[in-house]
């Protein structure tokens, strides 16, 4: 399947938007303007963008504690994302959720999640609903290698396989769950091989190659829409930063390993691809795209800062239906 140069440039724009948004979020977190905790997706942008660019707006996704990338890739508004990080009433969750809980139900983004493996069962239900609707909708769960050790992963895969649900289980294997390596914690070298235990396809893909991720996801989406059931997709990738942006955050990863993965940067790769064989992006265009993204991020920060904090009484809203 041909991915047009326009579509590739759009993928690049989304990946770079995730990166710039998070660089700014990290700065503002360290400066004390953003609270709680921030987990950056930088380095893994090709996964969210490669998968979400294979979806329609009506398709649903669910995310993890590291959720900004999935939001941006599905089409979330940077202003409302940044406002949520700033804890303002204009944020996606009216300031109630913060970084770990951004959701946008208008674009089928069912939320980041503070509980590791929290999304697996929920997305399975969204897949079931899509099957009941009968309009060919698809549901996608993003989760980490760490989450693949938790019980709900196994329960969800078995149910989805049995019921032939239209679900993509996308594991972002960045080799580490906080300070625990997948080599120590996961019983198999390739998480995708676990699919065999549930009788569904398991696919391994270079998670830093957005075009490959897109291709694999598109195939799985086609199977799901055709009623052929779920797919487990393992994206091999790496986070460029420590587990969180907390200045005291530990990092157990070997420096050589980090350095080696930095060279496989997914954005650099797509830029080189577009500039190289295809000649589809000259320096000036790339510079202009980047400037535009920087402006968009700056505007999001201005929007957030100009927004009010929620009023204390708002703490009592949204507990139940009115």
């Amino acid at each position: 399947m041909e991915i047009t140069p326009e579509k590739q440039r759009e993928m690049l724009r989304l990946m770079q938007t995730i990166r710039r948004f998070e660089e700014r979020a990290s700065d503002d977190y360290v400066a004390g303007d953003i609270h709680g905790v921030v987990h950056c997706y930088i380095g893994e942008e090709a996964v969210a963008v490669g998968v979400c660019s294979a979806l329609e707006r009506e398709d649903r996704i669910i995310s993890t504690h590291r959720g900004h990338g999935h939001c941006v890739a599905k089409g979330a508004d940077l202003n409302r994302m940044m406002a949520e990080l700033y804890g303002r009433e204009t944020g996606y969750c009216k300031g109630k959720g913060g970084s770990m809980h951004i959701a946008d139900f208008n674009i089928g983004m069912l939320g980041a999640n503070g509980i590791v493996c929290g999304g697996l069962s929920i997305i399975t239900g969204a897949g079931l609903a899509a099957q009941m609707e009968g309009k060919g909708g698809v549901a996608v769960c993003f989760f980490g290698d760490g989450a693949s050790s938790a019980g709900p992963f196994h329960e969800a895969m078995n149910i989805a396989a049995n019921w032939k649900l239209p679900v993509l289980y996308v594991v972002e294997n960045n080799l580490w769950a906080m300070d625990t390596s997948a080599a120590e914690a996961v019983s198999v070298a390739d998480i995708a091989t676990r699919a065999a235990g549930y009788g569904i396809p398991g696919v391994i893909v270079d998670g830093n190659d957005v075009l490959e991720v897109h291709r694999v996801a598109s195939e799985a989406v086609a199977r799901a829409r055709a009623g052929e059931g779920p797919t487990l997709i393992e994206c091999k990738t790496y986070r460029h930063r420590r587990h969180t942006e907390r200045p005291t955050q530990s990092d157990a990863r070997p420096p050589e390993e980090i350095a080696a993965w930095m060279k496989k940067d997914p954005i650099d790769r797509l830029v080189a691809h577009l500039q190289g064989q295809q000649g589809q992006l000259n320096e000036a265009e790339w510079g202009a795209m980047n400037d535009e993204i920087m402006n968009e991020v700056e505007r999001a920060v201005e929007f957030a800062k100009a927004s009010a904090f929620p009023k204390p009484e708002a703490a009592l809203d949204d507990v139940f239906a009115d």
Partner: protein
Amino acid sequence: MVTMSYAEAGKQALADEMRRDPLVWAVGEDLGRGGVFGQYKGLVEEFGPDRISDAPISEAAIMGASVGAAMAGTRPVVEMRFADFALCAVDELVNQAAKARYMLGGQTKVPMVIREPMGMWRSSAAQHSQSLESWYTHIPGLTVAAPSTPADNFGLLKSAIRADDPVVYFEHKNLWGLEGEVDEAADPIPFGKARIEREGADITIVAWSAMVHFAREAVNTLAEEGISAELIDLRSLWPWDKDAVLASVGKTGRLIVTHESVSVGGFGAEIAATVSEALFGKLKAPVKRLAAPRIPISYAPPLEDEVRVSPARIAETARAMVSQ
């Protein structure tokens, strides 16, 4: 006496018990790297990875395997990292650990400690802030403790490790860095023994965990105004020191119970009911509970503050009760 932090006191207590009893071991995520809050730092170097055991993100299996290992004769200390994540393993704790001794006719015991860091920790939002100690007081078979100081963390964790039944052990995330004097040679602190943090004559305030520190601030303010408040740190919620509370309220005739967890169905209700049953005629004012409204905890600071009970509110409530 040495000065150490609440986190160091917990670590020291665990290390002492591991030296004393080779059957004691700990398990959880990232323990070998010192634990998320550094409360296991250095332990793997002394005890090795078999006894300071790193587990995958598999709370249910960590808890369940510890139940089995406890039945088989070892003494696991289970680290759940945040009380919120322990919810992924409640079945293993409530349906299995809590009931095994009784349901199996006394043939087995489940000597394990479940460490659950609890409470609000600035802007951690609804899934990383909960105080759920009251839930566990409701479950027959479980012991529940919630220390507020380094010395209590030291002494109570030792008791928890030596106990022959499951102990749900709540350490407060905002207290890890709190420093205090600890007598390293002291005996373990028995469960069910409250600590009278401050003696007073006019009103009794009962608290536990981090709320003790807020209550102390209130007591100091009240003292400046000539109101003498007695502050009781319950330390363990099951068993709880009924005698100390009844003796105190018998003397003052007034009671405030304050906790960070939700007021509705909270352990404060149990204390209030017990006091009303025993001391109805002696009360000079209705018993008052100061605790969180029944809403999830928000991220934005102004919303998060809505669920906090402030020292000012405790003082104001006490003032009104005393002048009644």
